[in-house]
């Protein structure tokens, strides 16, 4: 089957898949273009999955290395991003599984001591207290995501940050669309239980009380 006819099968046309077909034909510039376009989403996905900045770029490089190595056998049977994130998910889940074996159990939220997580750049428009509050919230969000089972976490990250459709997530995770909907529903259910107290555009319920709790948490941390 010729590349042209394979590309025609994609509905609608996927320019990234076409670029990848050019990579298959030996065009390194097309690979560079794909790398520029997808580098950040892949690194961010891996980073949010592992919550380990020390390893996330290495894993993301492994993803692109695999893409490059597989160029000879590439067939655009799905959207390029689906294929790319399938590799990214595979690489990340393998790493998490290996780490689980090494440690005996996963503790993704154990970097609360700042072992691997660099401090976020301070926003000069924020007061110290606001910055500390923000940091407490970010820790809460990261911990809530980290405590999700691996597949649920991957589904949420692809749904929320990559804006993937259910069918795409299903192809990426190798399960049915209804299984993805179920995964997402359970994941968001857990996240609602942990994060719904945070202020949103729709509702800021008990906001003052929560702020007070966060302040107390900060003070408690400061006295330790």
């Amino acid at each position, binding site marked *: 089957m010729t590349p042209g006819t394979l590309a025609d099968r994609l509905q609608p046309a996927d320019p990234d898949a076409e670029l990848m077909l050019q990579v298959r034909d030996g065009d390194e510039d097309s690979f560079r273009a794909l790398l520029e376009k997808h580098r950040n989403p892949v690194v961010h996905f891996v*980073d949010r999955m592992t919550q380990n900045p020390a390893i996330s770029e290495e894993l993301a490089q492994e993803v692109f*290395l695999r893409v490059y190595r597989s160029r000879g056998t590439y067939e655009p049977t799905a959207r390029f991003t689906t294929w790319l994130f399938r590799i990214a998910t595979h690489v990340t889940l393998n790493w998490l599984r290996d780490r689980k074996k090494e440690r005996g159990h996963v503790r993704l939220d154990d970097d609360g001591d700042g072992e691997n997580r660099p401090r976020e750049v301070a926003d000069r428009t924020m007061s110290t207290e606001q910055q500390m509050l923000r940091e407490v*919230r970010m820790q809460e969000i990261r911990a809530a995501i980290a405590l999700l089972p691996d597949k649920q976490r991957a589904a949420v990250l692809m749904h929320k940050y990559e804006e993937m459709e259910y069918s795409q997530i299903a192809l990426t995770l190798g399960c049915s669309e209804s299984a993805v909907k179920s995964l997402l529903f359970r994941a*968001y259910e857990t996240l609602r239980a942990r994060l*719904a107290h945070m202020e949103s555009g729709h*509702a800021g319920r008990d906001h003052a009380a929560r702020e007070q709790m966060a302040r107390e948490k900060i003070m408690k941390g400061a006295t330790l």
Partner: protein
Amino acid sequence: MNCPLQSEETRDLLLDYTANRLHEASVKQLELHMASCAACAAFRNDQAAVWSALDAWEPAPVSSHFNRNLWAKIDAAASAPWHEKVLQALRLGSWKPAAPLALAALAIAAGFLLDHPARQTVAANISVESPNAVVAVSASEADQVEETLDDIQLLYQFESPGAAAGARGQM
């Protein structure tokens, strides 16, 4: 409109609503429903809070040497010895679709061998029933040995300098 939370097949409508992925017509229907359904309204509020919390989670910036490191890895992979490339190919899993076929072929071959264990018996039968055949087999084996010895001798002649000089002198 039926309450979307009542059915597993429709409850993702509320997730899609928060994610702004619903068609306008469905949005209007759902908003009309939520105005009178406390459970759906609460779900919407909580989900919106989660959504906005996740929005606040900004990823760490990608380092400036990401591409350079990646190309170094690509170059290293390209100049790797052949056995590492084979291992990499196995790790990539492009052979996986062929694995069931290979296993089936192995199973058939094993079954065939188990079903026909009589090669030695046949050879024995030949030796008993037709001694000429045995002689023929022995003769062909002797020929093979002789040819191999000739080949070795030829190789020695090529490798030996005296022989090579002699060969040049003859030319």
